[in-house]
């Protein structure tokens, strides 16, 4: 693999960090402040895109910032997997910034400058995770992301926000300090390096028992991936303003967790070692339990954002399951689900937020007939649902298709059944929302008879992400190529 030294990944990380002082200094002028946020988003996205051609040619961009001890440094490396994640996160940040402006103003939220500043910090950390060349750098950005998200989760500063924020930190920090940190050091003492290698770095370095324990410490240590039983922070975090739930708790934060696990599975352990130890399938079955239980809990939810949260928990484990199948098709399906689920789920959250801004409603039982008032929002919700369920013509179909093929390739029939059952369950909890929105008689107060959509700054973003979800069904090529590059 050809490596080029380039400072671009550092700039891509810094773009959203450096804009923070500007945001604070323009806190009295909301239009200028949001202008800067969007500008920073565009710069960040452009920087990421500018590295794409090199990555597609099979090159990697590396940049070492500080060397700590040999093999452990603060170092960036842009490979195809990181590129895929960075593309999705940095693009959706632009969309979410526009949406946030509409949402936060629509609800007259307080402390908007703080909100936008920490949002920008969170995005820096996300891109940092995507471009990390080793476990130490990844861990650093992972922790920065945890810390920067706290003020966003606890944004409302009331009793509920306090409880949720506390839960958030206990789960996320507790696991990362208690499990990831020690296993990282054990890993370094075994292998003498923490660089992600294409075949892993742990092969032949320790007994299967030690490796097995390490693997579990890593998988549960990255609690942002919300594998059960470490999932409870995610529904609690829904107390945050909806843009936070949309970008961070459906895309950036949770997928940083999943991404970290993928890096550990492929770059630290290596696919061959995992299949030799038979550990992949164990992880697969753990993920399968989360998939099923998450979907089942989602069915009983009445609060829309909580439903989406449990759906996310379930869908995140699809990604892990796909990679843990250890077959090329499973990996393709799992990793591309990062993209497909991101666009589908963010659309759904945007819709939930739009409903909140327009009508103040957050319970599904209050949304009967609302689709006639907000047809665009509900249509987008329908598209998002299709993508998460995995039906054509949406991108979600593509990832589910490959997941099913992957489980056949791995000859794991039980896992195949779990995938199918969960997709059915997804339909059970999503489609009634849409159906009742359009066709049920209104029996909740406050639903106006006429047409009344959310402010345009909320509406356009959700329309865009919904359209892209459809577009990804027809043109998944870019992301598929990136993943196939990463698999060599």
């Amino acid at each position, binding site marked *: 693999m050809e490596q080029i030294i380039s400072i671009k990944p550092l700039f891509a990380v810094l773009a959203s960090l450096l804009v923070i002082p500007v945001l604070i200094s323009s806190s009295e002028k909301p239009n200028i402040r949001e202008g800067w946020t969007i500008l920073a988003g565009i710069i960040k996205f452009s920087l990421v895109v500018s590295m794409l051609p090199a990555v597609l040619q099979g090159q990697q961009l590396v940049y070492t910032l500080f060397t700590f001890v040999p093999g452990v440094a603060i170092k960036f490396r842009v490979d195809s997997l990181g590129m895929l994640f960075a593309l999705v996160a940095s693009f959706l940040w632009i969309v979410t910034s526009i949406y946030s402006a509409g949402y936060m103003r629509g609800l007259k939220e307080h402390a908007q400058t703080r909100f936008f500043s920490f949002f920008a910090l969170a995005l820096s950390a996300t891109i940092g995770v995507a471009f990390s060349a080793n476990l130490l750098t990844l861990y650093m950005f992972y922790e920065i992301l945890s810390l920067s998200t706290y003020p966003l989760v606890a944004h409302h500063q009331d009793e509920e926000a306090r409880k949720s924020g506390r839960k958030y*930190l206990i789960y996320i920090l*507790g696991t990362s300090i208690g499990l990831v940190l020690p296993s990282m050091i054990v890993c370094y003492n075994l292998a003498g390096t923490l660089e992600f290698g294409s075949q892993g770095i742990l092969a032949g370095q320790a007994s299967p028992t030690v490796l097995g324990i390490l693997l579990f410490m890593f998988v549960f240590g990255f609690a942002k991936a919300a594998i059960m039983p470490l999932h409870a922070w995610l529904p609690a975090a829904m107390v945050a303003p909806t843009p936070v739930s949309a970008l961070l708790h459906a895309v950036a934060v949770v997928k940083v967790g999943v991404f970290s696990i993928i890096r550990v599975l492929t770059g630290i352990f290596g696919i061959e070692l995992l299949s030799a130890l038979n550990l992949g399938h164990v992880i697969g079955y753990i993920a399968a339990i989360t998939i099923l239980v998450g979907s089942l809990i989602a069915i009983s939810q009445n609060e829309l954002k909580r439903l989406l949260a449990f759906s996310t928990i379930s869908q995140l484990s699809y990604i892990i399951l796909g990679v843990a199948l250890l077959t090329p098709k499973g990996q393709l399906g799992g990793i591309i689900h990062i993209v497909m689920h991101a666009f589908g789920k963010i659309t759904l959250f945007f819709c939930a937020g739009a409903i909140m801004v327009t009508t103040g409603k957050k319970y599904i039982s209050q949304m009967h007939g609302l689709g006639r008032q907000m047809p665009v929002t509900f249509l987008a919700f329908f598209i998002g649902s299709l993508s998460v369920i995995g039906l054509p013509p949406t991108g979600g179909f593509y990832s589910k298709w490959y997941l099913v093929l992957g489980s056949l390739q791995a000859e794991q029939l039980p896992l195949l059944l779990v995938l199918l059952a969960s997709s059915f369950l997804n339909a059970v909890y999503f489609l009634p929302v849409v159906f009742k929105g359009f066709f049920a008689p209104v029996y909740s107060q406050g639903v106006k008879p006429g047409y009344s959509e959310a402010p345009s700054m909320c509406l356009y973003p959700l329309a865009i992400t919904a359209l892209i979800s459809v577009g990804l069904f027809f043109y998944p090529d870019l992301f598929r190529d990136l993943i196939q590059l990463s698999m060599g």
Partner: protein
Amino acid sequence: MSFQYPALIIIIPVLAAVFCSALMWGNRRLVYPLCVLALTVTALSTFVLLAEVIQFGPVDYRMAGWPPPWGIQMRIDLLNGLVLCIVSVIALVNLIASFRSVEQELAEKTDTFYILYLLFVTGLLGVVITGDLFNLYVLLEVTSLAAYAQIAMGDPDRSPVASLNYVFLGVIGASFYLLGVGYLYIKTGSLNMMDIASILPSLYSSLAVFTAFVFCMVGVWAKMALFPLHVWLPNAYAYAPTASNRIMAPLMTKVMVYVMIRLMFSVFGMDYVFEELALSEHIVLLASIAILAGAVLALAQKDLKKMLTYIIVSEIGYLVGGAWLGNSAALTGTVLHVLNDALMTFCLFLAVGNMSYKLKNLHFDNLQGLFSRMPLTMAGFVLAGVSIVGIPPTCGFFSKWFLLSGALEAGNYVFLLALVFSSLINAVLFFRIFEICFFEPMHSGEDHAHEHSRSVLSEAPASMLLPLLLVAAGLLAVGLYSGMIVDHVVAPFVSGVVA
């Protein structure tokens, strides 16, 4: 005699203290500028000295040209070169940062305070720079006496008792140390560290040497507040004047750790401490208990300053345990942690000093809404707290990394678990404070956050704020450049003493 920096480092602050005393009858307004000038020159000298050591190896300096073992020798290698820099920089920065708080708390006694401050710094620098065991004792007592007096100038109700407690334990500790040095003198006929180190190997089996070692260690542990000899520390530091606790908290204990490392690795030597005695597992266990006890006691506090003092007790466990693991990774971690912990503790106490400048009382209930009231002070506090927890890229992570590696290498899983567990408790401790400070006081009966009374911005003055932000940035810089610090300063020292 061209190279006089070692002597200057001691003489300048001592002379400045004398001049300041004289100025009490003259122009009192000159006292403070003179202090600043003296400590600036001292700080610059220490850096020149460290650069010299890095470039040309250890520096020997003979007071008035008398050769050792008769004359007093100063010997500066990478270890104390580094500690000298830490001491002098923190002393200088704190002097600047504390100007306003000294004015506020010690209105009538500012000049006396500054003289004591200079003597305290002189003592610390002397303890670190000297190559003579008895000289070390004398300077240690200079430091301690200056510290007792400063502490007694604090909270009028509580600080006298706290200071008296400290006097009792401090004197006991110093006596133990002196007795130990006495035994060594009887056996070796020398007080010079290098001289003793060269004589001792033939006396390893001597019971008197063993007694000397134990007495020295117990004395040093009492002075550094190793659990359960820590009881003097929390009150002494919590009720001392702001300007004093800001310098004692980071420096006093760390300098004593330096003395311990010096005794273990340079005077008695690794062979004696780890081969002859075989005590290390027990001491590391003691250190693990200290880590956990300090952390748990910190959890029980309701006052921010008190909480931080127990965190110091916990951190002492890190350092003692790291030194007694006796492998190069752990010792690297310990030396690096002396630097990092001094900076982190300094940063924490700078932030706390700024808070108490505005708040008077740092009970947890008073801290609500502090992020809105003092955002920059809190930014510094958050960085320091995160560093204590050990989250990269702050410096606390990197020393913890080496300590954990060392524990793993030694196969000491008790210490390993104690480190991880204390990191978790530290996370709870600090995030509890962050949470309190993030939320505004909540009025019962209100259900929506938007109507809370917003706190008004009320930051500390710039002279207190800038040093804090500087040190906070230092935490990041030292963290990011810790690879360089280890390569150039810590690793050469460690490889010199660890076989």
